[in-house]
C-alpha cells in the first residue's frame, strides 16, 4: 500500500529526517513511535506532500507520488489527520465535511451521513462552528473529515493526545472498526500504550532515524528497546 524509501526531509537548512524507510500493507495498522521532536509529524507531512523530501521516494499503491502536491496525494487515497487537528474553525461541522467530500464512483464510500453514523456525536453539532468544539469533538471531526475524502490509507498523528480516557477508549474502538473495514492506518504515537493496543507492527523513530522495526508482540516483549527510545 505505502512504501517510504530512504526519505530525507529538511525545514530550511535543518535536516530532520535521515533515510527514513517504512511500509504499510493493506489492512494493517502500523505505528510510528517516538519521543517529542523525534520526527513523527514530519514523516506524516512528508508522506502527505506538505514537506516534500529532498531525497528518497514515496510509493503509494504502486505509483511514485514523491513531490506531488498534497491535494493530489489526497485524491489518490491518503487521508490526513494532523496532530494539531486543524479543523476549519470558521466553518460549521457540516461545512467542514462538505468541502472535504471526495465522492467515489461506483461502490459505497464515505459521505456525510456515514460519518454521522460513525460518530453520532457529530450529528448534533452539524450547525456548530468547528472552532468552538471541545478537543474530543474536534478530533472526531478531523477523523471524519479525513474519512469523507475516501482514503485507502489514513495517516493519524497522535489522535488521542490530550484527550480524556473515555474519549481515548472510544477513538481506539473506532480506529479498530476502520481497520476491520479494510482501511490501512499509519499511526504516529508518543503514547506506547495506545500504540501497543492498536497496532500490528511498529517502527521507532528517534532524532529522525528509524531505530527499530518489528511486530507488536516483539516490541511488547522488548522492554530494553522501549526503555531506550520511549518514555516509560
Amino acid at each position, binding site marked *: 500500500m505505502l512504501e517510504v524509501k530512504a526519505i530525507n526531509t529538511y525545514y530550511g537548512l535543518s535536516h530532520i529526517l535521515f533515510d527514513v524507510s517504512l511500509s504499510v500493507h493493506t489492512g494493517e495498522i502500523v505505528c510510528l513511535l517516538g519521543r517529542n521532536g523525534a520526527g513523527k509529524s514530519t514523516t506524516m507531512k512528508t508522506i502527505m506532500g506538505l514537506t516534500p523530501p529532498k531525497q528518497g521516494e514515496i510509493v503509494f499503491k504502486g505509483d511514485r507520488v514523491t513531490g506531488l502536491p*498534497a*491535494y493530489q496525494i*489526497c485524491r489518490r487515497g491518503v487521508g490526513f489527520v*494532523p496532530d494539531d487537528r486543524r479543523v*476549519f474553525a*470558521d466553518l460549521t461541522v457540516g461545512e467542514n465535511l462538505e*468541502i*472535504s467530500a471526495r465522492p467515489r464512483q461506483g461502490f459505497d464510500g464515505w459521505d456525510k451521513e456515514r460519518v454521522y453514523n460513525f460518530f453520532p456525536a457529530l450529528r448534533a453539532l452539524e450547525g456548530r462552528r468547528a472552532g468552538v468544539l471541545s478537543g474530543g469533538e474536534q478530533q472526531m471531526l478531523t477523523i471524519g473529515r479525513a474519512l469523507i475524502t475516501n482514503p485507502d490509507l489514513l495517516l493519524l498523528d497522535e489522535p488521542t493526545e490530550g484527550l480524556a480516557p473515555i474519549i481515548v477508549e472510544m477513538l481506539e474502538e473506532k480506529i479498530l472498526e476502520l481497520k476491520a473495514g479494510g482501511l490501512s492506518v499509519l499511526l504516529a504515537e508518543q503514547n506506547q500504550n495506545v500504540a501497543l493496543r492498536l497496532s500490528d507492527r511498529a517502527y521507532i523513530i528517534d532524532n529522525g532515524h528509524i531505530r527499530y522495526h518489528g511486530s507488536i508482540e516483539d516490541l511488547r516483549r522488548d522492554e530494553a528497546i522501549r526503555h531506550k527510545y520511549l518514555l516509560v
Partner: protein
Amino acid sequence: MELFTGLSFSVLCIQILVGLSKATILFIVASGLTLILGVLRIPNLAHGSLYMIGAFTTYSIATAFSQSSLGFWIALLLAPLIVALIGLIMEQGLFRFLYNRDHLMMLLFTFSFTLVFGDLVKLLWGSDYRSLAVPEIFQGSYSLLGMPFPRYNLFLLLLGPVFAAGLWFLTNRTILGKISRAAAVDREMVGAVGINVNRIYAAVFVLGCYLAGVGGALVAPTQNISQGMDHSIIIEIFLIVIIGGLGNVWGALLGAVIFGLTDAIGILVAPQFGIIFPYLAVITVLIFRPKGLLKSIW
C-alpha cells in the same frame, strides 16, 4: 426644522441617501479588494487601476452603442467581464507563481501593475477625461421630502443590498465560498483534503477583479472618468478595508457606509473641509479598534 443656518432636516436626509449611494460603489470595489486580501493574502494595489479600466471600458462600450438606449447596460454587463479577464490573465500568468513570496514583495509587484495599467489607460484613451451620461431611465430626479434626489443614486442605493446579499450567498452557501473561507485561514489543510487551492485562488482573484470592474462601470456616469481615479479610489478602499477588518466582507460594507456617510455629511457641514471627515472617522476607528471593527482574517 433648522439644524444649522440653511441646513434643514430634508437636506440632511437627502445627503445621507447620497452618501449611502456612494457607499454602494465603495463597498463593491472594497469587497473585491478584501476578498483577494483575505483569501490570497495579496494586498492588490492594482485594484484601483482595474476599477479605472472598468470605468474607461464602460465609457467606450456605452459610446459604441450610443444609438441604443441600452448602451450603458451593455457596458455594465461587458466591462466588468473584460476586467475579470484581465484579472484572470494576471493571476494565471504571474501571481500564481508568487504566492509564497512575502507581503512586501507582493505589494511592490502589484504596485508595478498600477504603473503599467496607468500607462496603458493613457495609451488607449489619451489623457483627456471622459464623461458618460446617466442611462435614460435613470435621468432626472425624484422628489423626496421636497428635495430632488437623482434617480441614478436611487438605483445605486438599491443595488447595494443586492450585492451584499449576493456576496453573503456566495461566501456562505456555495462550495467555492466555503472553501475560500477555509483557505483564508489554513491553505495547507485545504490542500490536504484534496482541494486544488490554486484553482480556488484563481476564482477568488477573478471575482475580486470583476467587482472592481463593476464599481468602475457604476461610477462612470456619476463623475469624470479620468487618469488618477485609480489613486483616489485605492486610498479610499484600503482605508475602508482596514477599518472594517482585513479580509472581512462585512467589514468592507461597514467601512464603506462609514466612509460614504462621513463624506456626504462632511461636505454639508463644512464644504471647504468636507474631504477630511472620512479620514477623521478612519483615525477615530483605528484609535479604538486598531485591527478594524469586525474580525480581521489576518
